[in-house]
Every structure is written in structure tokens, then in C-alpha cells.
């Protein structure tokens, strides 16, 4: 059994402008010690989904199941969730400055976490542990810096503090919500390295939420691509990068500067759709270069593609490799005709 099993998760918010259906029927599994990446543009529902399962979304209508080590998090009472949060599921967020309380010393913030879940640990022992954790994530002079305030750290160092805090109790699962987005490129790599090292040491599973496919390529085992609250494609890392099926994934990859794609970057035209009263059609249809009649009539379900049970895609294009490649060739041809100088 997987560590975390999400089934048919739906999250909706009532706003004064209508019902926002932020997550629509999302399912995925996370195995122990593995990394699952959730990729998508902002507004695709990836953060909402993970915050909902840990009980951090308020005022939402939630249906579905989220079974964590045998406990359905969506049905669990407050006490149970509280005990799981922090101790068994650690979380880090995008902006490390605003994620740490500006008025408390970083050591205090880590100690609070330790003592919240282990009442027996003495103050000084918790402090020593906090200092040890800070040194583990690569903060120099951790013993002295434990009494500094968050604003006295650089962005990368703050995110290390967040990681130290989230990993303090050796959780089974770490949810990292855009952990490197706010950081410089060089610092990003260091932070990812720290995360991966702790993952190996503690055997932690990670849900990595990002819109950065570079980070995904580096870190993930499994990938879920989300768009407008839907999972568009699910696959292993290698399968997704080299054998994607969904046109949205194709668009994301085309907009990524990877080796071998030195030619030109193609951003996906158009903007993500509103999730207020979404119509019954493929959400990506208005922006999809492959779009055809059926896409406007029915919302495609996730279907197994390429006869690989671990690979599925929500798209009406043929599910066999040959058919998919033919569609691609046809599109390339049409484009060539359109761009041909007269």
C-alpha cells in the first residue's frame, strides 16, 4: 500500500463571484521514500490540493479520500490532523521570508515544533536538537545563529531553516510547495541538494509542487501534470519527459530551456481558464494546437496510454504510440505550411 493515496479529490470554494472549483477529481499515490512532483501553472489547483489534505484550507467544500498510512485525512478530526501535521507530514512553502514568523527567533520556532509533539523533551534538549538540525541543513555557526530572527538570514538560509523545521521530527512525508521558486538559481540547487540528502537519510517521501520542470527533472520519481484542477497526465519521470502524451505536457516541455531544445522556446499561447463554472469540455481546448471537435463536447477522462499502466493522460488523441505520433506529424506539417514563405 502506498503511503498516501488520493482518490477523486474535489475542492470547491464559494466566492462572491461564484463557486471556484479549484480541484476536480484528482487521484494519485505517493510511495514511501519516493518523490512525486505535481507540475502546473499557477491556479491549476496544485497547492490547494495538498493544503486541503493536510487540513490547511478553510471554508472549502471537499469530497474524495486521502488515505495517509491507513487514516483518511479528509475524515480525520482536528486532534488527529494536528498530531499528523508536523510530526508525520512536514511542509515547506514558497516564500521562506513570509513563511517564518518575523517576531520570533528561528531557534524558538523550531523548538516550538519539537515540543508541540514531544512534551517530554526538555527545553535545553530541544534547543540542542534545533541547533543540530540547523547545522544539518548547512547553516554555518548554527549554535549562535539559533538566536537570530528570520530577517537576519538570506533567502536560501531561510529556506534551509524551513527545511530544518519541517524535517525536525523525521516525517514520513514532506510537502514542498514551490520550495525554490523565490530563490536564486545557484541557491536553488543547494536547497534541493539539502532536501535530497535528508530524504535519503530519513527515508522521507516528498510531494514536490512546482511549475519548474528543471526541478522536476532533477528530483522526481513520479509526475502529475495539473491543469485547471485536473490531472492532465501522470507518468514516471522518464516516461513523461521522453514519451509524453498530453498536448499540455508537450506545451510545458516546449517552453522549457533544456539541452537539445536550444532552438526556440515556445510559450503556451493564451491564459489558464477560470475554474468558476467550468464547461463540460476539455479545459485545455482553447489553447490546444491539436484541438478537434470532440474536445469541445466532452471532458476527457484519464486513460491509460501506450499500454503502460503507470502512464495515463486526459486527452482524446489516440492512446497508442503510433496514433499519437501521427497526430504530431500532422500538426508539424500544418505548421510548416502555414509558415512557408510565399
Amino acid at each position: 500500500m502506498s503511503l498516501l493515496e488520493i482518490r477523486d479529490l474535489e475542492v470547491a470554494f464559494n466566492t462572491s463571484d461564484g463557486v471556484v472549483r479549484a480541484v476536480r477529481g484528482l487521484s494519485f499515490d505517493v510511495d514511501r521514500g519516493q518523490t512525486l512532483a505535481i507540475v502546473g501553472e499557477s491556479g491549476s489547483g496544485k497547492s490547494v490540493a495538498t493544503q486541503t489534505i493536510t487540513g490547511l484550507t478553510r471554508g472549502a467544500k471537499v469530497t474524495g479520500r486521502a488515505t495517509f498510512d491507513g487514516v483518511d485525512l479528509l475524515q480525520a478530526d482536528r486532534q488527529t490532523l494536528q498530531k499528523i501535521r508536523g510530526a508525520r507530514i512536514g511542509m515547506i512553502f514558497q516564500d521562506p521570508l513570509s513563511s517564518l514568523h518575523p517576531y520570533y527567533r528561528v531557534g524558538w520556532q523550531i523548538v516550538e515544533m519539537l515540543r508541540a509533539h514531544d512534551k517530554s523533551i526538555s527545553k535545553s534538549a530541544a534547543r540542542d536538537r534545533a541547533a543540530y538540525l540547523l547545522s544539518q541543513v548547512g547553516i554555518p555557526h548554527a549554535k549562535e545563529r539559533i538566536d537570530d530572527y528570520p530577517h537576519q538570514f538570506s533567502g536560501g538560509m531561510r529556506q534551509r531553516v524551513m527545511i530544518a523545521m519541517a524535517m525536525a521530527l523525521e516525517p514520513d512525508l514532506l510537502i514542498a510547495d514551490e520550495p525554490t521558486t523565490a530563490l536564486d538559481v545557484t541557491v536553488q540547487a543547494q536547497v534541493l541538494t539539502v532536501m535530497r540528502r535528508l530524504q535519503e537519510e530519513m527515508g522521507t517521501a516528498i510531494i514536490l509542487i512546482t511549475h519548474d520542470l528543471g526541478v522536476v527533472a532533477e528530483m522526481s520519481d513520479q509526475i502529475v501534470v495539473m491543469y485547471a484542477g485536473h490531472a492532465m497526465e501522470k507518468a514516471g519521470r522518464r516516461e513523461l519527459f521522453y514519451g509524453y502524451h498530453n498536448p499540455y505536457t508537450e506545451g510545458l516541455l516546449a517552453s522549457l530551456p533544456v539541452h537539445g531544445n536550444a532552438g526556440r522556446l515556445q510559450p503556451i499561447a493564451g491564459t489558464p481558464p477560470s475554474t468558476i463554472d467550468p464547461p463540460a469540455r476539455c479545459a485545455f481546448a482553447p489553447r490546444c494546437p491539436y484541438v478537434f471537435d470532440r474536445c469541445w463536447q466532452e471532458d476527457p477522462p484519464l486513460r491509460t496510454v501506450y499500454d503502460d499502466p503507470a502512464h495515463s493522460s486526459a486527452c482524446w488523441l489516440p492512446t497508442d504510440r503510433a496514433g499519437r505520433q501521427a497526430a504530431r506529424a500532422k500538426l508539424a506539417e500544418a505548421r510548416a505550411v502555414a509558415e512557408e514563405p510565399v
Partner: protein
Amino acid sequence: MLRFLVRRTLLGVFVLWVITVLTFTLFYVAPNNVAQTLAGRQATPQVVAAISKRLGLDQPLWKQYVDFVWHALHGNLGYDYYYQLPVTHIIATALPVTLSLVLGAAVIWLLLGVTNGVLSAVYPRSLVDRGLTTFAIFFYSFPSFVLGLVLLYFLYYRLTLSGFDWFPPGSYAPLSAGVGPWLQHMILPWITLALVLAATYTRLTRGSMLAVLGEDYIRTARSKGISESRVVLRHGLRSALTPVVTQFGIDLGQLIGGVVVTETVFSLPGIGKTNIDALTRQDLPVIVGTVMLASAAVVVANILVDVGYAFLDPRVRLH
């Protein structure tokens, strides 16, 4: 820190000086007939002139001002025109009244305002929130003199008529006369002043708390698995209180010199009442004295607010 205090104190002294100059000039420029008033309608010009001379009003403005500053530096703020009482004495008598009123009311409005604001923010759009916000906006719209009169009508007049002689119609009983009478005389003024301000503080705390509860670090606190009450109080309220404390300092400063309305409605001989009486009688020394006290209170309060801010928020450096 020291440099900050010195700089701010100098600035404060400068502001006070500007205010005394302005007060002096303004009241001198205005048609001034204090001597005439004092002498009575039938007095001969000689009598008026004599009175004018006794009060020093025949001197040129700069001379009057220099004398005032010279005496002020020696702790003497002059004598009132009508009874020749030292202004310092008048202020010293009035200040305890105002302090009783303001500090007592402050306890009520802080307790009420902060509690209500937190409750409102923690359960936004709930019945509790709606009730408390309605309460707040209602009293926020209540001019304090109307509120005072309403309280007097029902809690003094109607109650007394019904045989419950609990609240006096006004006036002050000093603490030295016993805690009981003091409380009895202060309760209605306290409620009057506190309800209006509690409304402001409810709204302020609610807004500040709502903003803070939407912060990322509150989400982090929740993600740590600490209890919700700890999230709200230890993490949320700690930040949300900063603007409340700031506002509290500013309000205290403003009120010490100017609870004119509540003091007038309840005939409390505090600084505000003294000031408005002096204004209507053109009793310049008393006006200048009370205005100086009021301005000094504001200036000191503002400095304390900034210092307090630096204590509350570790990111703030005083310079």
C-alpha cells in the same frame, strides 16, 4: 537608541515651542476683551486699563511671550485671569480627573475591543462576527456626547425615578474620598468613552488580525501541528497587536489633553473641561497651559509608540 531619543525629544520640544508661539499669537491677534469682561459692563476705561495692566495685557506681545517663557522655564505657567490661581495648580487639580477617566476607560475598551476583534477575525462572516461588527459599527457611529446623554437619561434619570439611586448625574469624587464613590462617579463616563473607542479597537483588531491570519507564517504555524488556540494567540495576536498598541499610544496621548466631550457631559473638572471653559472665557494663561500639556502628552506618546514599536517588532531599528 539614545540618538533616536535625543533627536525625537528635541523635535518634540520644537513642536511644543511652535505650538506655544502659535497659541500666543492667535489669541493676541483675536479681539481680546478679557479686561473689559472682568471689569464689568459699567466700568470706566480707567478701571479696565488698570485691570489690563495688572494682567500684563498692556505689554507688547513679545514682552508677554518672553515673560511667559522665562517663568515657564522656572516651572511657573502664570496665573489665571479670573481667580489668580497658578496655572500649574489648576492643571495639577485637573490631571487626576482626566487620568482617572482615561485610564479606567482604557482598561474597558482594550479588553472589549481586542477580545471582540479577535473573535470576529477567527470566525469571519459567522454569526459572532456579524454581531460584533454590527455592535462595533453602531457605537463607532455614536457621537460620544449623545451616548453620554443617553446613558444619563436611562441609567441616572430613569433608574433614579424607579428608586435605584445608583449613578450620580455627573461630577467627580476623588479617590481620596474612597474607592466606592470614585467608582460610582466614574462608571458612566468610563462606559461613554470606552464604548466608542472599543468600537474602533474592535474594527482595528479585526482587520489587523484578519490580515495576519492570512499570512504565510500562520499557515506554517498550522503546518507544525500546534494547537489552533496557540496559532491564533501566540502567532496571530502577537503580530496583530502591533498596530493596536500603536493606536493605543496615539489615543492615550490625544485623550489626556482632550476628553473634552465626556468631561463636559458629566461635568468632570478634567483637563478638557478646564480647557473649554478657559476658551469660552478667553483665559489665555489657562489655555496656553492646557494646550501645552495636551501637546506634550501627544509628543511623549508618539515617542513611546515608536520605542514600543521597536520592542514589539525585531525588524524595526530606531535611528
